[in-house]
C-alpha cells in the first residue's frame, strides 16, 4: 500500500504538487498572522515617550491586535476551505483507480488508510515548506501594517519557536481533516465503477452535504440577524464570521447551482462546442464546484469587505452631513478662540479639543477594565448650536465640572447620574454621567466639559453669515475648510483607511485564493488528457477542444462569482441594517467597481490557466493517448 501511495505520487504529481502548494501557503499565512498577532499583543510601548505618544502607541497596538485577530480568523478559514476542497477533489478524481483497488480486493479500511496516509505525507511536506515560507510572509505583513499606519512604526513580527508545532499541527490537521470525509466517500466506491461510470457524479449532493449546508445557511442567517443586535465595534467581525459560514454553505450547495448556470451557457455557445462544454459542466459537477470554490471565497470577501466598509464610510459621511450645522471648520495647533470670534460675520463658534483617556468598562471598583477612549471637550451651549445634539437621556447642557456625556461605543451600562471611573491626565478620577448620546460612526465617543480641555490642538466649528470673508480671515490662523470640503476630506481619509485595512486584512488571503484558483484548474486538467484525446479523435480540432475547455471554465467563473456575490450581498445587507440601527442612516453601497475588478481578475486567471493547461494536455497526438488508455 505504501508503494502504491509513492507510485501514485510519482504519477499524479500535478495533483499532489497542487495539494502541497495549498497546504504550504495556508500554513505560511496562518503562521504569519498568528506570529504577527502575538507580537502585537506582547509589544511593549517603548520607554521615553511622552504620555500622549505612549497612549497613541498603545492605541495603535490595540487597533492592530483587532485587525490581526480578524486576519488570523480569515487565514484559518481560507486555509481550511481551500485545502479541504482541494483534497476532496483529488480524491474524487481518482475514483476509478480506487474502484479498481476495491476490485482487486482492497477493503474499505485499506482505501481509507491509503488516502489518509497520503494526506498525512502531503500535510507534512506542505507544513515544512509553509513554516519556512511563513518568515518572509510575516516580514511582508509587518511592513504592510506599518506602511499603512495600522501598527506603530517600528513594529515587526517576531519568530517564536513554539509556532513550529502550531504550524505543523495546522498543516497536517487541515490536510487530514480535508481528506477524511472525502476518504469516507471514496471508500464507499463500488468496485463495479472501475468498469462503468455508475453516474457517481450525479450524486454529489449527498444527504449529509444537504444537512451540513443547511446548518451553515441557518447559522449564517442567525449571525446576520445578530449583527444589528450587537451593533458597534462587534458588527464588522461578526459580519466577517457570517461571510465564513455563508461561503461554506454556498460551497456545499454549489453542485446544485452548476446545472443552473450550465443551462444558459449551453444556449449561449450553440453548436458542437456548446454541447460539449455544457455536457462537461454537468458531468463534472464536482470538478466545476471545486474550481469555483476559491473564486467564490475571493469574491465573497473582497466584495463583502468593500461593500461593508463602503457602507460604513458612506453612512459616516451622511451622519456628518446630518449632524454638522456649521459653515466653516478650522483646525489649529493651539487655542485661538478670540481670533475666531472676531472673524467677519461669525454668529457661533464651538471650540473643541480632542481628549484621550481611559474609561472603566465596569462600575465594579475591584475589577476595573480600562478601555481607551477618545472624546472631545466642548462648551455645551456652543456645541449644541453647531451640531445636532439628540441625547437619548439626560441633558448635554449639564456638562460642567467633572461630568461626561457618553455614546454606547465609549461605554455601555451606565445611566445618567452614575459615576464613571476614568484615567484622565490632570483630571479627576471619576466623572458623573450627565447625558447618554446615540451611537455614532464618526465620533466623538464622549463629550467632556470645557473645564477638562487640555492644551494643544483645537478644532473650531464656525457659523458665519459671510463664509468667504471669514474663511479668508481665518486662513492665517490654521487649516480652514468649508463644511463641504471638510466632509469630503474626512470621507476620502476614511476611505483610504478602509482600503488600507482591507488590503492588510485580505491581501494575503486573496493572493492565496488566486493561487488556489490556478491550482484547481491545473489539477482538473491533469485528469483530462484522455477525455480531450477522445474528443479530438471524434473530430474536434485542438483549437475546438481548447475553446470548449475555455467556455467551461468561464461558466465556472460565473458560478463562483454568482455564489460569492450572493454571500457578499448577504453580509453587506447585514452590515447596512446594523448601521441603520446604530446611527439611523439607511444606506447600502454595492461596490460595483470592486465586483468588476474581481470578475476580470478571476476570468483572466482562470481563462488563461485553462487555455494553457488544455493546450499542454492536447500536445501529445490524440491517438497515442486513446491507444494508451488505462
Amino acid at each position: 500500500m505504501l508503494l502504491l501511495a509513492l507510485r501514485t505520487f510519482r504519477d499524479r504529481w500535478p495533483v499532489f504538487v497542487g495539494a502541497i502548494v495549498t497546504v504550504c501557503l495556508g500554513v505560511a499565512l496562518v503562521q504569519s498572522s498568528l506570529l504577527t498577532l502575538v507580537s502585537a499583543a506582547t509589544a511593549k510601548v517603548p520607554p521615553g515617550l511622552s504620555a500622549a505618544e505612549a497612549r497613541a502607541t498603545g492605541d495603535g497596538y490595540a487597533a492592530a491586535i483587532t485587525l490581526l485577530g480578524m486576519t488570523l480568523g480569515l487565514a484559518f478559514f481560507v486555509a481550511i476551505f481551500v485545502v479541504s476542497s482541494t483534497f476532496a477533489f483529488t480524491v474524487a478524481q481518482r475514483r476509478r483507480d480506487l474502484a479498481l483497488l476495491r476490485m482487486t480486493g482492497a477493503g474499505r479500511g485499506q482505501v481509507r488508510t491509503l488516502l489518509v496516509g497520503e494526506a498525512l505525507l502531503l500535510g507534512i511536506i506542505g507544513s515544512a515548506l509553509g513554516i519556512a515560507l511563513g518568515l518572509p510572509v510575516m516580514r511582508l505583513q509587518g511592513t504592510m501594517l506599518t506602511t499603512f499606519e495600522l501598527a506603530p512604526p517600528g513594529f515587526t513580527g517576531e519568530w517564536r519557536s513554539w509556532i513550529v508545532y502550531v504550524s505543523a499541527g495546522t498543516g497536517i490537521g487541515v490536510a487530514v481533516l480535508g481528506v477524511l470525509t472525502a476518504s469516507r466517500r471514496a471508500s464507499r466506491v463500488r468496485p463495479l465503477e472501475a468498469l462503468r461510470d455508475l453516474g457517481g457524479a450525479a450524486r454529489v449532493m449527498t444527504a449529509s452535504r444537504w444537512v451540513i449546508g443547511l446548518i451553515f445557511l441557518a447559522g449564517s442567517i442567525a449571525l446576520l440577524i445578530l449583527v444589528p443586535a450587537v451593533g458597534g465595534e462587534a458588527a464588522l467581525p461578526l459580519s466577517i464570521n457570517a461571510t465564513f459560514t455563508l461561503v461554506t454553505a454556498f460551497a456545499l450547495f454549489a453542485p446544485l447551482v452548476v446545472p443552473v448556470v450550465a443551462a444558459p451557457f449551453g444556449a449561449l455557445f450553440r453548436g458542437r462546442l456548446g454541447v460539449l462544454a455544457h455536457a462537461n459542466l454537468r458531468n463534472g459537477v464536482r470538478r466545476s464546484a471545486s474550481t469555483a470554490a476559491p473564486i467564490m471565497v475571493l469574491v465573497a470577501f473582497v466584495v463583502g469587505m468593500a461593500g461593508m466598509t463602503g457602507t460604513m464610510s458612506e453612512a459616516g459621511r451622511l451622519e456628518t452631513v446630518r449632524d454638522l450645522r456649521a459653515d466653516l471648520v478650522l483646525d489649529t495647533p493651539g487655542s485661538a478662540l478670540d481670533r475666531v470670534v472676531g472673524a467677519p460675520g461669525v454668529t457661533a463658534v464651538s471650540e473643541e479639543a480632542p481628549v484621550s483617556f481611559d474609561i472603566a468598562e465596569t462600575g465594579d471598583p475591584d475589577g476595573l477594565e480600562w478601555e481607551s477612549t477618545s472624546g472631545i471637550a466642548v462648551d455645551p451651549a456652543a456645541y449644541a448650536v453647531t451640531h445636532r445634539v439628540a441625547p437619548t437621556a439626560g441633558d448635554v447642557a449639564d456638562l460642567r465640572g467633572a461630568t461626561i456625556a457618553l455614546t454606547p461605543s465609549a461605554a455601555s451600562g451606565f445611566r445618567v447620574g452614575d459615576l464613571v471611573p476614568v484615567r484622565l491626565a490632570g483630571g479627576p478620577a471619576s466623572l458623573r454621567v450627565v447625558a447618554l448620546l446615540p451611537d455614532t460612526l464618526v465620533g466623538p465617543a464622549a463629550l467632556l466639559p470645557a473645564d477638562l480641555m487640555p492644551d494643544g490642538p483645537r478644532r473650531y466649528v464656525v457659523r458665519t453669515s459671510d463664509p468667504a470673508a471669514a474663511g479668508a480671515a481665518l486662513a492665517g490662523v490654521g487649516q480652514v475648510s468649508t463644511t463641504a470640503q471638510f466632509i469630503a476630506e474626512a470621507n476620502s481619509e476614511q476611505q483610504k483607511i478602509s482600503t488600507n485595512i482591507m488590503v492588510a486584512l485580505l491581501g494575503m488571503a486573496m493572493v492565496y485564493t488566486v493561487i488556489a484558483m490556478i491550482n484547481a484548474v491545473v489539477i482538473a486538467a491533469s485528469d483530462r488528457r484522455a477525455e480531450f484525446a477522445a474528443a479530438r479523435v471524434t473530430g474536434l480540432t485542438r483549437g475546438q477542444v481548447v475553446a470548449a475547455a475555455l467556455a467551461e471554465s468561464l461558466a465556472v467563473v460565473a458560478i463562483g462569482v454568482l455564489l460569492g456575490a450572493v454571500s457578499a450581498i448577504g453580509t453587506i445587507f447585514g452590515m447596512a441594517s446594523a448601521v441603520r440601527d446604530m446611527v439611523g442612516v439607511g444606506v447600502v453601497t454595492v461596490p460595483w467597481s470592486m465586483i468588476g475588478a474581481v470578475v476580470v481578475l478571476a476570468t483572466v486567471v482562470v481563462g488563461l490557466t485553462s487555455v494553457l493547461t488544455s493546450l499542454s494536455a492536447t500536445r501529445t497526438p490524440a491517438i497515442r493517448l486513446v491507444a494508451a488508455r488505462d
Partner: protein
Amino acid sequence: MTASDPVAARADDVWKVYGSGEAEVIALRGVSVTFQRGVFTAIMGPSGSGKSTLMHCLAGLDSVTRGEVRIGETTVTGLGDAGLTRLRRDKVGFIFQQFNLLPTLSAKENILLPLAIAGRKPDDAWFDTVIRTVGLQDRLEHRPAQLSGGQQQRVACARALVARPEVIFADEPTGNLDSRSGADVLGFLRDSVRQHGQTIVMVTHDPVAASYADRVIFLADGAVVDELHDPSPDMVLDRMKKLDAPAEVER
C-alpha cells in the same frame, strides 16, 4: 473449500432487474448455471443479452434481485461489504476488455497488487511460471502506457492467475486484441485450466475464442438457452446464427 467439491461457482434462479417503472430492464430472468472446478467455460449471446450482468452477479460485483450465487462454499448473495471484499481478495480474479491496470504501477507491481493488498507473500516459483506462461519476462518494469494492448491484457491475465483464485472471470478479454494476441491470451488461459486446474468463466463474442473453452453457454434475453461441450468454431457460429435469427424476425 474441499477438493472433493467439484463446483467452483453456481447461480441458482438468478434474476437481475435494473431500474424501476418505465426504465425497468430485466437483464437476467431466472438463470441457473453451474461451473465445475477446472473447467474453462465461455458465455456467449447477442449484445445486451445479459452476459456481463451475469458475470458481475457471479463475482459479487453487483447484487442479484432474486436467487442465489455461490462461489466455492461461500454464499455470495447477502454478503456484506467486508465479506465481498474478502471474496474478491481471496476467491476471484478478473480480466476485462478494458485492461484495468493501475496506470501508476509497473507491470510487475500490477501483477502483484492483489497479493500485496491481501498481505500475502508471492510464491516465487509460481510467479515465474505465470510470467513465463504469459511471456512478460522482459516487460516487468514497464508501465501500462508503455505496453501494447496485447501486452497489457497479458499483464491483466497474469494478475488474475498469480493469486490462484477459485474462479477467474473474464469479460471479453480478447475484445480489444488482434487475432494473434487474442490467440496468445486464450492459449494460456486454456493452459492454466489444463495444467493447473484453474477455473475460468469467460464472456466472449468471438466463436474462435469460445472454441478454446471446454463448454459454451448461450444466453439470450437474460436466460440460458443453449449449451455446447468441446465446441469447434463452426459449431459455435452455427448456434449463434440460430440465436440471432428469431430475434431478427421479431424486429
